């Protein structure tokens, strides 16, 4: 169910981001009579310029055994398919391949999505990923320099109020701790070749990469457990309400001293973080599972199919997205999407860590001891404090008196 809901949304964003590679191939007709139907210099030049090419003239030329010369005749020994015909069939995935290897996708001998995936991963993905993370850190540093630490404005009461129960803090830290490990090891995997090998050399990086892979693959389960726990414990508190609009209208009070818009247990900013973590975390988990069990959980062809039926990719000018993907292409899309969504979530979490630690006085206590200064709670979650106080005053009246 979750996959059905989440996949189309993220698939659309993916299609937008990866759009250039999936553009409808509106290519002009090329006269190939000079080469007897084979590719021309024009085709080669266009390919070298990175232009899309309609290669149906090659992909369909895989031999014709039915009209082949008899075995005993001249040129008949290959049964109507020449070696190039056979290799073209391999290359375009149309050959009827049987193999003794029993691994998944073992009958795919050639697939041509690899170079595009590699250049995208080592090019735009790395570059914009680094800009995103670096830019977020710079913005947070600037915000800290301009705004400074958000202090408790009123006088501290010395009284505390329980904000999060131990089980809530446990779930938060299960997810947070594993996310940090996954983020670090994920970055090692993504940027290792370009950044870390030049710094540490191949030998050292090899140890680091193998260790990172182990941690990344196995710690992922803790993240998924934490994510599930957090979702069920906090979802009701994170349903958007009208109060959120007021909170947003006043910028959450974080840009100006002395401004404290009312908020419930979670303010609009925290709700945004919550839903970002849940939705992006779920998407990362799904693609992560797909990567963890290679070829077992393909999801992109189906997602593209759902997207095509909505008409959105066509509306945005991407044409019909391909719904026939080789098993390796499924893995390539899963890897790219996993990395892109993870980078986005990392940037969001940078901001979350900032405001929950150095950025705001008293905020860390909520997840540290679970007890927050009452004045802090009144300033940032006034409606929640009121409801807690109301419950406390009602409790003795409803409770059973001690005997």
């Amino acid at each position, binding site marked *: 169910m979750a996959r059905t809901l989440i996949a189309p949304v993220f698939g659309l964003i993916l299609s937008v981001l990866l759009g250039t590679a999936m553009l409808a191939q509106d290519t002009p007709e090329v006269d190939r009579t000079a080469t007897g139907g084979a590719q021309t210099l024009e085709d080669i030049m266009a390919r070298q310029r990175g232009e899309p090419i309609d290669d149906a003239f090659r992909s369909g030329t895989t031999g014709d055994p039915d009209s082949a010369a008899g075995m005993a005749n001249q040129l008949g020994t290959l049964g109507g398919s020449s070696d190039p015909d056979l290799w073209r069939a391999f290359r375009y995935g149309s050959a009827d391949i049987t193999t003794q290897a029993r*691994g998944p996708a073992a009958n795919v001998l050639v697939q041509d999505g690899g170079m595009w995936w590699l250049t995208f991963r080592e090019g735009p993905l790395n570059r914009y990923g680094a800009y995103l993370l670096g830019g977020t850190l710079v913005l947070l540093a600037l915000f800290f320099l301009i705004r400074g630490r958000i202090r408790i404005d009123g006088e501290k009461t010395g009284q505390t109020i329980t904000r999060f129960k131990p*089980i809530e803090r446990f779930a938060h830290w299960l997810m947070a701790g*594993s996310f940090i490990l996954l983020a670090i090891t994920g970055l090692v995997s993504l940027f290792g070749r370009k950044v870390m090998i030049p710094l540490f050399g191949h030998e050292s990086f090899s140890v680091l990469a193998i260790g990172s892979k182990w941690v990344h*693959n196995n*710690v992922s*389960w803790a993240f998924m457990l934490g994510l599930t726990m957090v979702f069920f414990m906090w979802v009701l508190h994170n349903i958007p309400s009208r109060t959120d609009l007021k909170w947003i209208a006043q910028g959450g009070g974080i840009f100006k001293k002395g401004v404290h818009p009312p908020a419930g247990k979670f303010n609009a900013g925290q709700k945004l973080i919550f839903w970002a973590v849940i939705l992006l975390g779920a998407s990362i988990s799904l693609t992560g599972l797909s990567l963890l*069990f290679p070829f077992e959980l393909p999801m992109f062809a189906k997602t593209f199919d759902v997207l095509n039926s909505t008409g959105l990719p066509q509306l945005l000018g991407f044409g019909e997205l391909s719904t026939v993907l080789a098993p390796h292409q499924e893995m390539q899309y899963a890897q790219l999407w996993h990395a892109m969504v993870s980078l986005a979530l990392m940037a969001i979490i940078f901001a979350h860590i900032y405001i929950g630690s150095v950025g705001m006085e008293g905020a860390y206590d909520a997840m540290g001891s679970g007890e927050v200064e009452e004045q802090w709670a009144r300033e940032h979650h006034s409606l929640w404090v009121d409801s807690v106080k109301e419950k406390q005053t009602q409790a003795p009246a409803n409770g059973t008196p001690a005997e």
Partner: protein
Amino acid sequence: MKAMLLAFALTVVIAVGAFYSLQEIGFSAEDQTSGADVRLDE
């Protein structure tokens, strides 16, 4: 603080447990990509 440490400890337990469990049920890359005739344990 106790909840945080407990969560970190469980993260380690889950990671080690996942590693051995997946090996045990035959989800290693070797197991997944070889037929029954391949003697992985020799």
